[in-house]
């Protein structure tokens, strides 16, 4: 059974169908790259998984539990338990500006899981080391570069020990020189077998790291495949057009 199972997911804003009966699955240890033109619904799909958006129909199940089953959402405590399995990294980092890097990492597990300070300190130190920022623990976000901020955001998501990590264009707000360091951290995570869904415009990353590419347009998944297949021999006309334009 897939770790994430989405079936006939529907979402509309007023008259506009943003997601039209989308179905797909993600297996454990998959790294899924989600590509497609602006407005195709990639962010909405990702946000629906963590319940930042309410969907209008269809089902989402995570690790076997239904977050929403044929349009009916689970009870709030259940929802909480299910979404806790996922972490999310945003395009604009969304670090808490009034907290230091260390506090940014520790506040959620401290308040939500009531974990001990000692445990949290050890974990935050390890994770900051992992993203190469062990020496910035006491800095405020305002003092970090974009790339550093995004690496802190990744570490913060990891502090909650999620099984799945979602990324919504993690590098598109960064200067080109700074995307490298963030992509490196994501590569490391992929190598450690973290299950990830990454909405991205970085075709290089999609080719190198993902084991599955999903192409979306106008609220539909038009094509899914292994990176080489999809990039080198796209079957769908719109996929072809899109790949031409971005290259």
């Amino acid at each position, binding site marked *: 059974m897939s770790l994430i199972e989405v079936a006939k997911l529907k979402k509309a804003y007023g008259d506009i169908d943003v997601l039209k009966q989308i179905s797909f699955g993600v297996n454990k240890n998959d790294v899924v790259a989600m590509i497609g033109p602006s407005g195709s619904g990639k962010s909405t799909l990702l946000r629906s998984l963590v319940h*930042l958006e309410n969907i209008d129909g269809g089902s989402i199940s995570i690790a076997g539990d239904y977050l929403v089953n044929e349009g009916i959402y689970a009870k709030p405590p259940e929802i909480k338990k299910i979404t806790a399995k*996922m972490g999310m990294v*945003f395009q604009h980092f*969304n670090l*808490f500006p*009034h907290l230091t890097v260390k506090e940014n990492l520790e506040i*959620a597990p401290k308040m939500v*899981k009531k974990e001990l300070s000692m445990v949290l300190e050890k974990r935050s130190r390890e994770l900051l080391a992992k993203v190469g920022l062990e020496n910035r623990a006491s800095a*405020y976000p305002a003092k970090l570069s974009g790339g550093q901020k995004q690496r802190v955001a990744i570490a913060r998501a990891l502090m909650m020990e999620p099984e799945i990590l979602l990324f919504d264009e993690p590098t598109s707000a960064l200067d080109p020189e700074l995307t490298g360091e963030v992509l490196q951290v994501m590569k490391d995570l992929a190598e450690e077998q973290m299950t990830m869904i990454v909405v991205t415009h970085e075709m290089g990353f999609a080719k190198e790291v993902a084991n599955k590419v999903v192409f979306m347009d106008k609220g539909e998944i038009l094509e899914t495949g292994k990176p080489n297949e999809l990039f080198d021999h796209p079957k769908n006309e719109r996929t072809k057009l899109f790949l031409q334009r971005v290259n």
Partner: protein
Amino acid sequence: MSIDYMNTILRPMLEGAQVTILLFFIVIVFSIPLGFLLTLAVRSSIKPLAWIAQAYIFVVRGTPLLLQLLVICFGLPMLPGIGEFLVLPRFMAACIGFVLNYAAYFAEIFRGGLLAIDKGQYEAAQVLGMNKWQSFSRIILPQMFRVALPAVSNESITLVKDTSLLYAVAVPELLHFAQTAVNRDFSIVPYFFAGLIYLIITFILTIVLKKLEKRMKFE
């Protein structure tokens, strides 16, 4: 000007300044939380509550504080029936008038502060599993206060000067004593001393607030 004379006119003024400062602290302490509650009421999903809060803010901000003070101090006791229970000690009446007035101004400031906070902050907190209260108290509120602080500072400096309105409800303060001295001595000097005292108070306040703003910059 002799030291003696200065002493004569300064002593009552400094006493009056104490009233000014006392009022200042009372108003700050009560109107900031009250203003915050008003902000919450305005944003409340209970529509009638939101409307009442909005109407309150509109009326308070649209009429002079002086009028409000007169109403609370001399008007309320005139209400038929319940009036006799509304005879508050004068200074308390003034405090209530100031607190109710400033709460409306602070409410508007906080509303602006909340609007300035990025939606992403709420979303990040939610995705990290925090509940509404946790994310509001630990993530949103501290940022709101930081954003609102410069406006709150401005408002507090206005408050120092507004304390001079106390004289209208017969609470003797700095300016009242200055005026007494001016009348008695036929000299403009007491006004200058009063001005100087106000300047010193606002100056110190400005410095303290700037320090606070700097500390709240999170850099």
